[in-house]
């Protein structure tokens, strides 16, 4: 009886692990999409609204998916509180703190990091160019992420369950 319960627990936890991994594959395209939307909103705020960067971050942060939005809110907070920080530094700092909480990868971080170097420090046209460039990069990554999702999401789910099943079979 105890053996049976143990086997069940192994099966359940193995499926859970598989499910967790597959979730990150499912989440990444969603968050990437949110990041894309955020950058497009930022473009509107900067190019048409002429909103100061700090307020633009807050506006964007409040409107997009929370997991990505919090990154901008954090950057806005840093920008307001630590006056010696430049826009680049505050966004970098926010990314460092916030990135582990997202399903996003290093590549996305690099795109955003290179954008942060110019954000706010040139005229509208230039800002627009850089924002569009970042969006194009992220689009590419999004496609890639979707392909990966199709490939691996199901696979990890079944792999988890089947792995658990293997252990159970070996146990008996």
């Amino acid at each position, binding site marked *: 009886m105890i053996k049976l319960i143990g086997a069940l627990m192994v099966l359940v936890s193995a499926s859970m692990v598989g499910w967790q991994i597959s979730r990150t594959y499912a989440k990444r395209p969603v968050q990437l999409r949110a990041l894309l939307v955020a950058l497009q909103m930022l473009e509107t705020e900067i190019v048409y609204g002429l909103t100061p960067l700090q307020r633009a971050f807050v506006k964007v942060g409040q409107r997009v998916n929370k997991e990505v939005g919090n990154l901008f809110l954090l950057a806005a907070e840093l920008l307001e509180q630590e*006056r010696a920080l430049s826009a680049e530094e505050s966004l970098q700092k926010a990314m460092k703190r916030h990135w582990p909480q997202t399903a996003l990868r290093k590549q996305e971080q690099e795109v955003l990091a290179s954008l942060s170097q110019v954000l706010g420090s040139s005229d509208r046209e230039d800002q627009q160019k850089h924002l569009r460039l970042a969006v194009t990069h992220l689009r590419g990554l999004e496609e890639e992420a979707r392909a990966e999702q199709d490939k691996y999401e199901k696979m990890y789910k079944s792999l988890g369950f089947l792995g658990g099943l293997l252990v159970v079979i070996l146990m008996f």
Partner: protein
Amino acid sequence: MQEIMAILPASVRNIMTVLPSTVLEVLEEIRLRQNQPLEIRYGQQTSYVTPAGQITSIARQGWVFTQEHVVKLLNQVSQHSLYALEEELKRGYITVVGGHRIGIAGKVVLERGEVKGIRDVTSFNIRIAREKKGVAQKVMPYLFEKGTLRNTLVISPPMCGKTTLLRDIARQISYGNEWSSSRKVGIVDERSELAGCLQGVPQRDVGPRTDVLDACPKAIGMMMLIRSMSPDVLIVDEIGRPEDGDAVWEAIHAGVAVVCSAHGSDVEEVARRPMLGKLIRHGAFSRYIVLSRSRGVGTIQAIYDSSLNPVKKEQPA
């Protein structure tokens, strides 16, 4: 002063705060130039400031403002958003919280022969704005006749306090006073001097019933305000272009009282200018206030009526 201190880079702020309070109280300008010593203008004097916050007349003892400080100051002034300052960079000055003005110079970028902006900013002139409330007190009794406000032209050479006077007139009319109840005031503030707007919000006290069209060309602005805000009084600084005259004429005949100003040292001189001369000859104005510096900034030299006779004081209603 606090508003100014807040935008200065920490290194400059630390030096400025140890300046003697006698200097700080009369501080008029802080001049910062890349690779040059920090210069201040206070009272009628100019001097450099040493790294220890002492005043000196020897340039090489002064604390030097470097490129790193330029970037920091620009970041603070623009709130990390240079793109939002395009218009300001085109005009060459930025208005900050408190209505203070920062003049800038550097490398100008052209586009099709027109100034597009200043790219490498190297010089800053921070001008500290000080409001002088109550300067209009002396002229208010002359502006009214039987309880109605008269169309007024303030004539003054530069730097005699004409903008300050206009602002105080706007405030007094907006709040209301002994001669009239409070009225709706419209200000067209082409150079952002009257109300010192920041993001459209007046940084100077121009009264509770005042609407400001910031950075708008005067002639267009006057018409816009009449149509959109139905002001009782329109206040405009420095009219001079032909279209300004037409707009003033229109406004007066739309039942709006106009208080405006023009450069000049007396009525005769102003009357020789084509547009203003026409307005004066047609009796557009019934009050002329002439300012000078003869007894300090803002001396009221004379107040005339439409036929250029001195005006009697109106008794409070």
